[in-house]
């Protein structure tokens, strides 16, 4: 991929995208597919044939928030088993051209005199992801605003930082007040110096982060910027105290509060072939990937890979009907020749995986223990801390499916923990 080979025990340098990638708007899809994680079709409060408005909450009373991003008629309600053993509720909506907006989402003109709780409630209602734990009553102690993209070949935050630095400053002030965070950190790539001057916020600390993978992953940001665990929901409550918000979502919040519009449009970076040019498109959440591919004029090669959310820790889709979600940052297509194939060789104990692991796991041992089903050893070695960044797979000379093995170990360890 034109990336530097691993040398010594230096982690491989996988740089983030820094240049400008202009954003092009895509038309509204004929049919939008909405996914609701960890929910079943019974939790959906609308029926087939109902007409829905943009921003309308489709969830049954009391089951949370599942916001429609389009206006139209419900065609299909189904469920889907994700690759991570999580159930999704699926709602297919036939769209109409002109949006009519749900009345419960309103703009807030006078931010300074509005109660923080009210602002926060409006942000959450407008459909921004990542606030599950806040909804359950967790307090945000540290707020990290990330101007880094999570993955290479992704230029969403990079472009937003170039285009809308002023809105970022407004957003930081607004969000830090809304969440009541004690500490606010703005993480910007080390090589985008000019943008740092544009962001001027009194109460926030601006930190330059080296723009290489995996420094943009939320877990790494939360850990490196002196904060604690990420805010997550567990089965019996919430854990952590740090909220990481990307600047794309942040400027989205600013627009949402100004104009009273829900969060329905997402910037997605597309790369049709390796080494090819990046292209940013603005799509309606729920648009199938096939529309993005048509826009790029890329045909899916048989045996190739369609990867959403980046080449390192993204996931490979089995269909181009996969819809974009609020957290889909990029689409990447690989030709069959570029697809990395795992091999069933034994670990040769070279130790590169442990050297590159950003959370200091002993991946060589974990891989073996997981392969042979010794999960209490995996728990001892801290398997639950794997952030699935994929670096161990990237450097493994034996080409072992380490991420698969570690994810399995993590899953089993978590299940066992819950059972106890």
């Amino acid at each position, binding site marked *: 991929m034109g990336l530097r080979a691993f040398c010594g025990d230096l982690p491989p340098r996988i740089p983030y995208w820094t240049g400008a990638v202009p954003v092009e708007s895509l038309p509204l899809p004929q049919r939008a597919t909405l996914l609701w994680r960890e929910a079943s079709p019974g939790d959906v409060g609308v029926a087939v044939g109902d007409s829905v408005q943009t921003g309308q909450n489709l969830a049954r009373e009391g089951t949370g928030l599942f916001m429609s991003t389009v206006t139209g008629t419900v065609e299909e309600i189904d469920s889907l088993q994700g690759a991570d053993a999580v159930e999704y509720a699926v709602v297919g909506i036939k769209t109409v051209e002109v949006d009519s907006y749900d009345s419960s989402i309103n703009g807030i003109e006078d931010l300074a005199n509005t109660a923080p709780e009210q602002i926060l409630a409006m942000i959450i209602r407008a459909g921004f992801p990542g606030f599950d734990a806040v909804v359950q009553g967790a307090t945000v102690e540290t707020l990290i605003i990330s101007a880094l993209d999570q993955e290479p070949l992704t230029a969403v935050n990079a472009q937003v930082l170039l285009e809308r630095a002023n809105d970022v400053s407004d957003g930081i002030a607004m969000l830090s007040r809304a969440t009541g965070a004690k500490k606010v950190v703005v993480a910007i790539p080390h090589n985008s110096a000019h943008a740092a001057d544009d962001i001027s916020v009194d109460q926030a600390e601006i930190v330059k982060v080296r723009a290489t993978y995996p420094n943009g992953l939320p877990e790494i940001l939360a850990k490196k910027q002196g904060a604690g665990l990420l805010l997550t929901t567990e089965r019996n409550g919430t854990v952590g105290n740090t909220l990481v918000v990307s600047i794309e979502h942040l400027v989205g919040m600013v627009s949402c509060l100004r104009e009273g519009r829900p969060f329905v449009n997402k910037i997605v970076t597309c790369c049709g072939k390796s080494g090819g040019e990046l292209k940013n498109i603005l799509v309606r959440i729920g648009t199938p990937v096939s529309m993005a591919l048509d826009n790029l004029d890329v045909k899916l090669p048989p045996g190739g890979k369609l*990867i959403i959310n980046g080449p390192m820790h993204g996931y490979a889709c089995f269909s181009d009907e996969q819809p974009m979600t609020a957290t889909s940052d990029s689409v990447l297509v690989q030709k069959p020749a570029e697809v990395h194939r795992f091999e069933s060789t*034994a670990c040769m104990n070279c130790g590169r995986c442990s050297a590159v692991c950003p959370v200091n796991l002993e991946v060589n041992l974990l891989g073996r223990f997981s392969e042979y089903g010794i999960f209490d050893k995996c728990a001892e070695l801290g398997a639950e801390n794997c952030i699935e960044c994929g670096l161990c*797979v990237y450097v493994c000379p034996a080409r072992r*499916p380490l991420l698969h093995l570690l994810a399995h170990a993590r899953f089993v360890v978590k299940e066992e923990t819950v059972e106890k």
Partner: protein
Amino acid sequence: MKAADLTVSTGSHWHSGARITDFSYNTLLALIPAIAMGLYRYGVCAAGVIGTAVASAMIAEAAMQKILGKPVRIADGSAAVSGLLLALLLPANTPAYMVVVASVIGITIGKLCFGGLGANPLSPALVGWAVLRITKPWAGYLDFDLALINYDLGFSMQYPLAVLKASGSSGLQDFNTWNLFLGNQTGGIGASAIVCVLGGGLYMIARGLVRWEIPLCFLLGVIIASCLFRLVDSAAYAGPLFHIVTGNVMIGAFFLSTDNSSAPINRWGMVAFGLCCGMITVVLRVWSVYPDGVVFACLLMSLFVPLLDKLKATPIVVRPTRAQITRKTVEGGASS
């Protein structure tokens, strides 16, 4: 959903391109100067020893994998490297049967019995060499003064370490450190070509195939231990430079002790491993019956690798641990 003919897998979807063969083939490449020096010095005899060792190691591996019903993987080159390293430690006119016995035992007992590449607790080459070393009737062939008695290469044909053992550092006036460094000394076919081995080792480090910690700390350990001995009695014990440029120290530091599966993988483990290897080498040179102690030092320290690998950075906690979740449950139970 429309089924498309797509490949689905877990991440990462990129790969650095590294292969298992990178290690072995680059080791073979890095050792070419040492081999060339050996062939130049000792001629066809050396070629015979190297060829026998490599061939018997590869045949033993293939045969053993066939017998055990495992896929035959001699193409990964690790057996060839083991055979080659063994050959480079031996004198040029070692009888073929000794070479075959050493490399077959090294590969079968030392490696495949434990599960093959990556699972062997000891380096196969070292196991083979140690078997030869402790077989008393064959010891004469490994004594470089006796074995190479018919060679005259234009420099002192006395094995420097044997001289040191016999007459202390006062007997070393004939040896010039710079000459020894250039490889003008008797010794193993490749191990005595100090400068070539050093060059190959630096190549391996530059390619990132050998981590720098072990070689550096190995040499550091030799320096520390020899300086300590020198402090006690400078007349009886040789200085650090002499220890580094003689015998198997250079090949030991860069190639023998850095065998992937018999060395630690965490930084401080590697530092401790290297330092101990180096210091034990000097201790064995001074106090054991054998002139050189590199191989035994490496073998001894390899046994401590599981222990040394405990010297690791603790995992960074990014998710709630078991304890935190349990505490939550207890709190939740108490409040409800």
